[in-house]
């Protein structure tokens, strides 16, 4: 992949390209939840592997930033590491695993457990930005539906799930209404993370590389998960369970199977959160 940092401009792109992406981003921030088209660029990473998020990150990053990159909650996954390397090689900025230390957090499929704070930016990678796509194949038509705030299709898809499975079986990417105007795909985060978007202290940006769209949830925006009167929105519940490693509860956990005993157990999905807790406990001498 990257050999020397000097072969590229700071943050890989030329300044004109960065400016253009930032212009689209500013528009996205001004119209919360609205998908703004942008000229998605070729990257030394295949489209569909986070190039949308990466382009946003590279357009925003400055010399004083500190980066955190996670993939499905893990800082050390191959994808996260590759993206981190590219950012590091082309910017030389520092990186961290600790959510609270990062100024920009790029993530796929999760919002970290440690609450984000004012001044932080969360960049989410998005495979499918259009929440109405399964209902309406044509981009021209979905644009009209958004323009007219006609979201029957989004509710219909939830209704269909209830007819099929008895509940709203969205594993991830449960649609949200942003500031009572645009229905938005929150990216494939678990339902557990949806409420974190509501009235967030941090700026949330969402980028889709293949589909060439950027959209945003500015700080303190109202974000409501779609639900019916008699089928309220319910995040995944881990009631009664706690992380086998750090003991945390009320976080999003993976269900794992102990190979030898065949027993199932739970573990924090957010690895850095889990490690931080372990370290803290060790310092306090609790373990």
């Amino acid at each position: 992949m990257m050999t020397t940092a000097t072969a590229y401009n700071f943050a890989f792109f030329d300044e004109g390209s960065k400016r253009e992406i930032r212009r689209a981003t500013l528009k996205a921030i001004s119209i919360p939840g609205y998908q703004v088209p942008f000229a998605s660029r070729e990257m030394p990473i295949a489209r569909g592997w986070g190039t949308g998020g990466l382009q946003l990150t590279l357009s925003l990053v400055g010399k004083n930033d500190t980066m955190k990159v996670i993939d499905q909650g893990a800082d050390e996954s191959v994808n996260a590491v590759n993206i981190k390397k590219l950012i590091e090689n082309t910017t030389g900025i520092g990186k961290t695993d600790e959510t609270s230390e990062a100024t920009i957090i790029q993530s796929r499929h999760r919002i970290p457990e440690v609450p984000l704070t004012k001044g932080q930016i969360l960049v989410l990678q998005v495979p499918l930005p259009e929440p109405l796509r399964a209902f309406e194949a044509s981009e021209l038509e979905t644009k009209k539906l958004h323009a007219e705030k006609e979201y029957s299709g989004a509710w219909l898809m939830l209704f269909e799930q209830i007819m099929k499975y008895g509940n709203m079986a969205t594993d991830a990417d449960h649609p949200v209404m942003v500031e009572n105007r645009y229905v938005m795909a929150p990216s494939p985060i678990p339902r557990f993370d949806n409420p974190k978007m509501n009235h967030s202290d941090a700026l949330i940006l969402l980028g889709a590389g293949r589909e060439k769209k950027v959209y945003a949830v500015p700080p303190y925006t109202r974000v409501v998960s779609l639900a019916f009167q008699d089928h309220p929105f319910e995040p995944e519940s881990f009631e009664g369970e706690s992380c086998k490693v750090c003991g945390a509860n009320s976080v999003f956990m993976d269900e794992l199977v102990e190979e030898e005993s065949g027993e199932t157990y739970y573990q924090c999905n957010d690895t850095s959160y889990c490690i931080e807790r372990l370290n803290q406990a060790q310092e306090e001498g609790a373990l």
Partner: protein
Amino acid sequence: MNEFDSPILSVRHLNKQFGNGCESCRTQNPEQMLKNYCPVCGTVYACKDVSFDVYPGEVLGIVGESGSGKSTLMKCLYFDQEVTSGVAYIHTYKDGKKNLFEESGQYKRYIRNHLMGKVYQNPILGLKMDFSSIGNIAEKLISAGERHVGTMEARGIELLDHVCIPIHRSKEAPKNFSGGMQQRVQIAKALSNKPPLLLLDEVTTGLDLSVQASVLDLIKNLQRELEISIVLVSHDLGVIRMLADRTLVMLEGRVIEQGLTDQILEDPQHQYTQQLVHSLL
């Protein structure tokens, strides 16, 4: 129909053309036209100066040969297409004072979702073939603002039962159904919000004769029971005779004759209508 009732729907001077027209066709000099087609610029004048009323509780038939503009007219009324010019009023909508064609997209959706139902000849246009049948009905209810699953499920099952779709098939997708059943699901969907006006475009065309008869029976019964107004389009005068109280005859985009269906059948005035009636006998 009662003469003293006000119409539920009034349409005046509706024009729809495909193409911009040219010097040659703008005057509509018949010598320069091939029927309603301009051979110079390729413009099709699909509906020309169409005016009519629909009264509460009546079935208005529209008959005419293929290409006479019937479907285009229905598409304009349901806002599937924009008119070139003309006005339409619904008596119960904004006191019947607002030209429907000049309303915004959002208001047009409101009218479609609350005041009208439509059944298309081709069920692909009226149904989501991969969604459940009950979901198809729910779509219209959701569009009209319903957000209670239990209510929609109950209403959907009631409607499907009404159009003789077995309840155990309510969660099946229409793509698994026969043509006649698909039309029944479309009818159930169109009726879901109890609209005062139902638009039916060749709903039995292409179905087997026996299936045709049962769908026509269903429409007749529903219409009597629900007392809704229906605009029924068909190229088949037999269908019109069976259901329509009054009838418009269209030819090359124009209404050439209108009146009570019985009168038109017994004493057709226009030469074209005479041919049509004779071919039925």
